[in-house]
């Protein structure tokens, strides 16, 4: 794969697999980013930015066992990084505003609206573990790998996030959380 000044020749792209990856996975990444950020514009930005960087280093990413998991992790990193940096911008005009969720018939239910707002208020990494667990249905080990942390940290953060979300735990889950706290 030839590189010129940091960019590939376009004629190489078709053979790289990156175009196919984008075609196959871009929509899924956008959905993941949307759930992660709660912001359609920000999710677009993050995915576009991540894909452009993934493109630059695609030969290495393509060699990983799970390129999608790798790029998804880039999305998480970018989200955490963006969130952290954006918080510093008192006039960050286009990120921190709550979405007019009530405009969407699918989200008019007050409880769901409240849930999404509480979700938006979570620290970015807590939100990420919640999304990975309850949207992507990943086990602790895979979440830990995606988040660069220990499985116990994943569990404790899920517990904290669920508490912040005021989720009523079923009995088995409550028991699991108790075990985790004791650990």
């Amino acid at each position: 794969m030839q590189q010129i000044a940091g960019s590939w020749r376009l004629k190489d792209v078709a053979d790289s697999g990156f175009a196919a990856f984008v075609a196959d996975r871009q929509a899924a990444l956008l959905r993941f980013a949307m759930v992660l950020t709660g912001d359609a514009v920000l999710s677009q930005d993050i995915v576009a930015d991540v894909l452009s960087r993934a493109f630059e280093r695609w030969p290495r990413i393509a060699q990983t066992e799970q390129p999608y998991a790798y790029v998804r992790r880039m999305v998480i990193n970018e989200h955490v990084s963006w969130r952290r940096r954006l918080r510093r911008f008192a006039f960050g005009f286009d990120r921190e505003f709550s979405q007019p969720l009530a405009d969407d018939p699918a989200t008019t239910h007050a409880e769901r609206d409240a849930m999404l707002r509480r979700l938006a208020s979570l620290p970015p990494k807590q939100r990420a573990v919640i999304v990975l667990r309850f949207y992507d249905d990943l086990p602790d080990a895979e979440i830990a790998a995606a988040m660069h942390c220990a499985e116990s940290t994943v569990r404790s953060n899920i517990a904290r996030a669920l508490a912040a979300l005021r989720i009523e735990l079923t009995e088995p889950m409550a028991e699991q959380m108790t075990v985790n706290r004791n650990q």
Partner: protein
Amino acid sequence: MPTIDDLRSALEALAEQAPTTEKTVLRRRRKHLRPLAIASAAAAIAAVATVPVLVTRGSDSTPTPPVESASSPAPTTVSTTRLPLADPSLATLSFSITPVQGMTAFAWETGVGFQRAFLTGQTFPAVTVYPPGGWAPTRSAGARDASVGTKSGFFGPVRHDGPDAVALTGENPMVNGNALAWQYAPGAWALVESVEQMSLQQMRQIAAAVRFDTKRAVSVPANFSYLPAGFEIKGITTWLPRAATTTRVGDQTLTSPSVGPRVRLALGKVGAAATTAEIGVGIEPIPPALGNVVREPNAVHVQVGDFTGTYNDGFLQAGNGTTAAVDIAGAGEHSARLSQAEEVDVVQALGLVSQPGDIANWLTVADVRGQP
């Protein structure tokens, strides 16, 4: 009380609101004209030329160019006065930073009640300076005393509870970065922050490199002959030109071929809190080597607004054939947004300086006057 199933349902509903892939391609440029972009402008422009092509090859649908090239009616309000600043301090940077640990400031921001510099480096450090009485950090039990020279302060992990609420704390294990706050003058605080962990010693060195004895006028690359009535400038962010860099963040390597100067203005309703600024105007001169990305100079490309906001962009030509990409985006509460027509007016009414890629040609904010 909601259940896990309610949470799953809410997440699925949120996913349904995800933008389409086509919109992502159309909006590719947008992020790079906003504040905070760490990746370079040149990389952004290069990406405009490459990523959509990749998507085209990988999918059956061909991304369309921006939907409409609009000619706008004449602006309804012509400004012949100076730019409306929410605070006079927006026009002047009141501190500087000498190079430290191989890092230099690459972006500067003036906002209402604070000024900030962003430094190169893999930990994304930033220095924020507040005027006397403007802000004081909240200290929690986790923070420890730390001085900068003879000035007292404290150091610890940082937690952001809102745009203006920064707490130094040892209680939040989810936070990577930390901060050093010090009182550089009686009642006046400054803050060094990082996205990733930095030691107290590293932060002290950055803090010690801050100079409060210099002032520099903030400049912009254009005249504004139209700004929407009832809005004022709440913040200005300027990225200085810099050479190619490679930055490593965690396991990511960001390569920026080069960065041209660019500026972003945040507009908000007159008298409203700075945090409610909702309109951003970005101007990004395009290096001659990347001139092939320019399409339809002096046309404004209207993007269809959605519930998240509005967005228009275009390319403006100045003397000597130099060009800048311009975008204007609105977000936030519907009541405070500009109409698409107003956004187009703002973009079309900009008067680009000659050779806008050279920041020396920019106009100081205090001198900018509308050109009817």
